[in-house]
């Protein structure tokens, strides 16, 4: 069996677009959704919180149970119990359960895309892409887990038998962000489960409903309730989970500040904790696109614009900076400025929208703060909708080297262009940044491509294309340096972080006679 990516909808066809609008209409009639705390069984009767539509903040998309520290403790306890049952199942059987969950997501894909449009203001093509990526993670890790279960081959000599197998670690905590509200929680959870661990999922407070749909699908597919809990809520629940000595693995995707705090907190080994915690941490970036003098600007402009402003720049992989050869800088700036002016800023449910609102008021304020730090060369000319957390996409250029705009992660629709003498200088600039998640290079010289590829420290380098949209199995994704610890989601190494290797060496000699 081989893996192939779930095809995204062909949205250039009118019937595909209509099917999504129909799904949205049906979803709207059901709002707000209810997302319970789920530990063993649903635990109703507690405080709740709402997720709202970033494009229309008075629209409540979901009301979720607000889990607390007791829920966290209960979820870990349930997981310890669930782990026994789940890990005892053969890998192939667990893989089958994940595939069944993928099938459930597939059947609900229109509705789940519509949910992201509402809950996270994700425009249709990206919402659909996110659902497909979630399906991909389930299918991919199902295959990988079965392969991993075979173990690795070792050197054998007469008289001994060496085997190397992988065992699940135990209880995995998943702390997920809102920007890929189904795919990222799904990827981390599916990896933990596929490898035989029990999982406790704490989704972002901005997107509990997508996480709820994921957990529903996994339970319905056959993951035991105790082996997978859902704890909607805020940071204090995540912190309690990270501290819990019964937790073995923590898989986190989100901001650098939180990621580093998790690494610090999880390093502690209090009395009674019989293991060292393993942390998978995917954090921020300050992603640069290098444009050499020989680049094809007809390709550079649309690819850079989409990389920088798709989903309002709220992807960890998004382009934040362009480092352009001075010989082509003026032309590129003029064309980029013109392309940014015509960007369509609007509500996520319109197919024409290219830049949706950002996720919440704090994000809007943060972006505005950075935008005030220098002259804005161009911004989109469409009138912003009256309500919603909108920020116009903006272009800045030639900022001083120490400008925070050039050095800090903004996570919004703001792109800064700097001129460089050549690609070596561009590599020096990238090298000086603490982040190393994605990067891009536009060049038509094979020698330049080779040289830059060798120098770029980033986890994912894209050459002559946009720098977002990593596909499971095709572009295993994850950052280096302070962007992450080097795990590659959707790649062949990822599951290794959720297992521990065990080597068994057996002496097969009995009284000088081999008994193999």
């Amino acid at each position, binding site marked *: 069996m081989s893996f192939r990516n779930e095809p*995204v909808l062909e949205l*250039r066809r009118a019937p595909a677009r209509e099917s999504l609008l129909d799904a949205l209409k049906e979803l709207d009639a059901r709002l707000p959704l209810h997302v319970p705390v789920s530990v063993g069984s649903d635990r109703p009767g507690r405080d709740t919180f709402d997720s709202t539509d970033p494009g229309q903040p008075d629209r409540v998309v979901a009301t979720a149970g607000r889990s607390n520290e007791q829920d966290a403790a209960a979820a870990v306890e349930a997981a310890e119990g669930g782990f026994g049952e789940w890990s005892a199942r053969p890998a192939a059987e667990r893989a089958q359960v994940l595939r069944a969950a993928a099938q459930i997501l597939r059947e609900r894909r229109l509705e789940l895309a519509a949910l992201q449009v509402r809950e996270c203001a994700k425009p249709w093509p990206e919402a659909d892409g996110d659902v497909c990526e979630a399906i991909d993670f389930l299918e991919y890790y199902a295959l990988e887990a079965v392969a991993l279960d075979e173990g690795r081959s070792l050197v054998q000599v007469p008289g001994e038998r060496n085997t190397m197998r992988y065992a699940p670690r135990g209880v995995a905590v998943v702390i997920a962000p809102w920007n890929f509200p189904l795919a990222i929680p799904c990827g981390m959870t599916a990896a933990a489960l596929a490898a035989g661990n029990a999982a406790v999922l704490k989704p972002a407070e901005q997107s509990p409903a997508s996480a709820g749909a994921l957990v529903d699908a996994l339970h319905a597919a056959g993951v035991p309730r105790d082996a997978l809990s859902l704890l909607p809520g805020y940071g204090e629940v995540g912190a309690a989970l990270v501290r819990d000595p019964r937790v073995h693995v923590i898989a986190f995707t989100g901001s650098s500040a939180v990621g580093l705090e998790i690494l610090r907190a999880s390093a502690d080994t209090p009395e009674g904790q019989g293991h060292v915690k393993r942390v998978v941490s995917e954090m921020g970036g300050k992603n640069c696109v290098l444009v050499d003098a020989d680049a094809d600007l*007809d390709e550079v402009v649309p690819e850079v614009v989409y990389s920088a402003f798709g989903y309002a720049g709220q992807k960890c992989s998004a382009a934040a900076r362009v480092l352009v050869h001075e010989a082509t800088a003026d032309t590129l700036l003029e064309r980029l400025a*013109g392309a940014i002016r015509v960007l*369509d800023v609007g509500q996520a449910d319109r*197919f024409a929208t290219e830049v949706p609102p950002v996720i919440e008021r704090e994000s809007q304020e943060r972006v505005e703060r950075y935008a005030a730090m220098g002259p804005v060369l161009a911004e989109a000319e469409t009138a912003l909708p009256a309500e919603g957390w909108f920020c116009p996409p903006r272009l800045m250029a030639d900022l001083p080297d120490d400008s925070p705009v050039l050095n800090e992660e903004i996570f919004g629709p703001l792109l800064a262009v700097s001129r460089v003498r050549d690609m070596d200088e561009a590599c020096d600039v990238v090298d000086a940044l603490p982040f190393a998640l994605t990067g891009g290079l536009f060049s038509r010289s094979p*020698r330049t491509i080779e040289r830059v590829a060798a120098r770029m420290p980033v986890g994912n380098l894209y050459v002559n294309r946009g720098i977002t949209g990593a596909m499971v199995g095709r572009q295993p994704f994850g950052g280096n340096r302070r962007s992450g610890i080097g795990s590659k989601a959707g790649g062949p190494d990822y599951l290794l972080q959720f297992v521990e290797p065990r080597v068994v060496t057996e002496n097969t000699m009995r009284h000088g006679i081999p008994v193999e």
Partner: protein
Amino acid sequence: MEMASQDAELRAALFRFVDVTPACRSLDDLARHLAGYLEEVDDRPPPIEAAMKMSGTKPGRAALGAAAAAGVRHMAHRFIVGESPKAALKAIRHLWDNGAAVSLDLLGEATVTQAEADRYADRCMDALETLAGAAPSWPERPVLEADSIGRLPRVNLSVKVSALTPLLRPEAPEVGREDAARRMRPLLVRAKELGAHLHIDMESVDTVEATMGLVFELLDEPELREGPSAGVVIQAYLRESPQQLEQVLDWAAATEREQPLVVRLVKGAYWDHEVVDARQHGWIPPVFEEKRDSDRNFEALTRRLIEAWPHVRPAIASHNLRSVSHAVAVARELGREDRDVEFQVLRGLGDDLAAALADLGHRVRIYCPVGDLVAGMAYLVRRLLENTANESFLGEQQRGTPIEELLAAP
């Protein structure tokens, strides 16, 4: 070029070189790029090896760069009729004198800003004016100027919707359609005043819905009912092309326009793009993957189109002798006069065929790209790819494939 056809790696290297030429800043830069591409070819014939050696020194690079630039310019001139409409007038007149009409196509960079769209519209306007200024001095050519429906414009311009707006988005075709319409409308009005023909080209599948919608909507506007003559394109490599043609024919039958729509039937020039794009997305390619299926469909659509005359004016655009002969035969079988089917070829690729068809008394129109070398490169590379593709008719013909095989029914 023949050498390139034989060796896919070498061909790729040369295409990449042609593609990058406009962006190179000096002969030295040009030579470095050429050497960079050739380095990736495993099995290098002696002349290529010599070129590589030259690239090792500065004077060598200057010489190699100059030679390569001259080569590319020479090749570009074969396909591009002039740097501007004005500069192209002499060549156009020459073609007219020799019995071939033209449709002018303005090459340019991709349109990503409103300013670029405005510039393209201005260039279109200028092309209309320039051609209309010169055309009255051309000698009478009855075959090129009338069919049995009536007069045919001497001035003929092909325009690309993707160049008229930076807003074409496959998932929101109405946005690009509306933006392109506000630039297309004045062109149509001016073409009507000048008695010119405006042909709306078809590009990749991503733009088909916007393009078709634009054509149907604009041409039905009251002020455009009496003109100008206008045309659309059907790409026979599209699986959906039979339905698209029916849509066009339904519209043509219902419209109150005075001049019948010209429908240019082509195989289609974006095959690789469509297949790769579909494969990367996990979609079924919108094009036939077997060349023979495209050829067969082309013949079926040819018949349908000629049957539909006089609601539409058929224009058969192919370099494939079999496809062209088939169209002639179908027209005669259906009792059409020869002058009621137009044939179209590309400059630089279909010149021999054009001459032969003109000699036989058919109306031939040569699609002539206009623009500078920089602008022409993307176009050129696509033409070259088509020409040297293993299965292309011209490629096969060049390699000496027996004529019976080339003319076999698809």
